[in-house]
């Protein structure tokens, strides 16, 4: 097989399209690169879904944790403690076992005239179940980051907002929230990177890779098992992930620039890289 044929056969293998059987013998470098790259689609999907959804939940959590009412503060504190204090790996296991035990009932509902049927069966599949766990996990981590930023919003800014007669939602939306984001952004960039890395855990914890549709690391360990040579597939994964991390840094750097655009050049905060290995 030429490399172009391999690409056609395996480029979307992780989504279930193309050749059904994975390469078994005489595995070429091209096959490894294409298949691992195809697995990367899942990593990107998990990371983007969890980040985008988790962002809003994290904001709500931070506001709740900063609230003076115990009824709002306590649940947020506990949520953040539980998800930050336990390994993501265990969370995956626990969530999967819990989803398996759920009754296999379908829920049907009509929205805008279209019939939807949601079934709890989907929760045991990685695309929904793992996304849910990652969403809750990143919301907890980002919630703590946002909470820290919320507490360090300069008092002068808030007093100025009061002086201009801004109150309630308006004050939050126009003053508190943008400042919070600006302060939290460097740390949040790191969180995004580690979430991206954490997506590799999905198929190594409870969630099975249905019809061998797995992520980058799943295929890499498949190749390492088959060829008994770790020196090719793992560096390929590493290369893909370094590219992914660099693009995350680029995108978040652009947003950081926009958030800081009103500040004089000397006071702008660069994204500092901080160490945080595993969740």
């Amino acid at each position: 097989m030429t490399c172009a044929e391999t690409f056609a056969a395996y480029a979307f293998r992780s989504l279930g399209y193309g050749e059904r059987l994975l390469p078994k013998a005489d595995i070429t470098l091209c096959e490894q690169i294409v298949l691992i790259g195809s697995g990367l689609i899942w990593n990107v999907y998990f990371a983007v879904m969890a980040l985008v959804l988790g962002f809003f939940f994290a904001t709500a959590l931070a506001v709740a944790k900063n609230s003076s009412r115990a009824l709002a503060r306590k649940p947020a504190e506990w949520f953040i403690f539980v998800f930050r204090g336990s390994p993501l790996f265990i969370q995956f296991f626990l969530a999967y076992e819990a989803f398996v035990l759920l009754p296999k009932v379908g829920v049907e509902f009509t929205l805008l005239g279209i019939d939807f049927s949601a079934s709890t069966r989907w929760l045991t599949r990685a695309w929904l179940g793992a996304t849910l766990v990652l969403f809750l996990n990143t919301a907890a981590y980002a919630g703590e980051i946002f909470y820290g930023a919320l507490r360090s919003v300069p008092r002068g800014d808030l007093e100025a907002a009061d002086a201009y007669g801004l109150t309630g939602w308006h004050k939050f939306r126009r003053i508190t929230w943008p400042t919070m984001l600006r302060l939290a952004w460097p740390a949040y960039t790191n969180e995004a990177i580690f979430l991206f890395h954490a997506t590799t855990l999905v198929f190594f914890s409870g969630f099975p890779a249905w019809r061998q549709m797995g992520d980058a690391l799943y295929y890499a360990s498949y190749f390492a098992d088959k060829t008994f040579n770790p020196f090719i597939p793992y560096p390929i994964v590493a290369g893909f992930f370094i590219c992914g991390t660099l693009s995350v840094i680029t995108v978040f750097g652009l947003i950081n620039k926009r958030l800081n655009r009103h500040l004089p050049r000397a006071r702008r905060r660069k994204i500092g890289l901080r160490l945080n290995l595993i969740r």
Partner: protein
Amino acid sequence: MLGKLYTSLVRGVPDIVFFLFFVIALDQGVEWLRHQALCPDWTEPVRQGSDFLVCPDAKMPLSTAPQWLHETYNFSLAVVTFAIVFGAFAANVLYGAMNAVPHAQLETAHAYGMSGRQTFWRVLVPQMWVYALPGLGNLWMILIKATPLLFLLGVRDIVYWARELGGSKTGVYEYPHGDWRIYYFLFLLVFYLAFTRVSEIVIERLTRSLSHGQATAAGEKLRRAA
């Protein structure tokens, strides 16, 4: 340049890739070295297609070794892997802490006529811990939460047993109870939560006692309170 490459590599690659990679790489590396040393007249190549073949004398541990030796060897491979990855990070933290010690302290030590070695051991090292502690504490928390990954490296740790004993059926036995894995994992979750909480408290106390007599804001606060 090397440092930059290292940081981008470590930051850009998921840790679990490191773990999976190092275990096999170490295993094969040790066997290959023994192969080179023990059977010099072995002519066949080590990599034959998809097989990694070394001469029988170079197997590590030897195929005649008892079972417990195999298990211990696997376990130590996993530990060494953890040490490689986390040791690199701890070195980074300690390096940062050494730079954080006020330079005036070292200059004063020199002025008193201490040699380079004396300055290092008597002035720099005792003072760097207070700066290193936040980083090391962070690393410790991360390490606790990384330990269930041992299971992926083939060590029979708590996660392995929770999966084995919790399921109603394993490869060998069929247990009379149903699927209890969810309770076992719930217990694991609580266990890890308690573990991190206790560590947090211990680290807090350590920070307090290390801040005694230090030229930092926390140390000043302690002095005022006394």
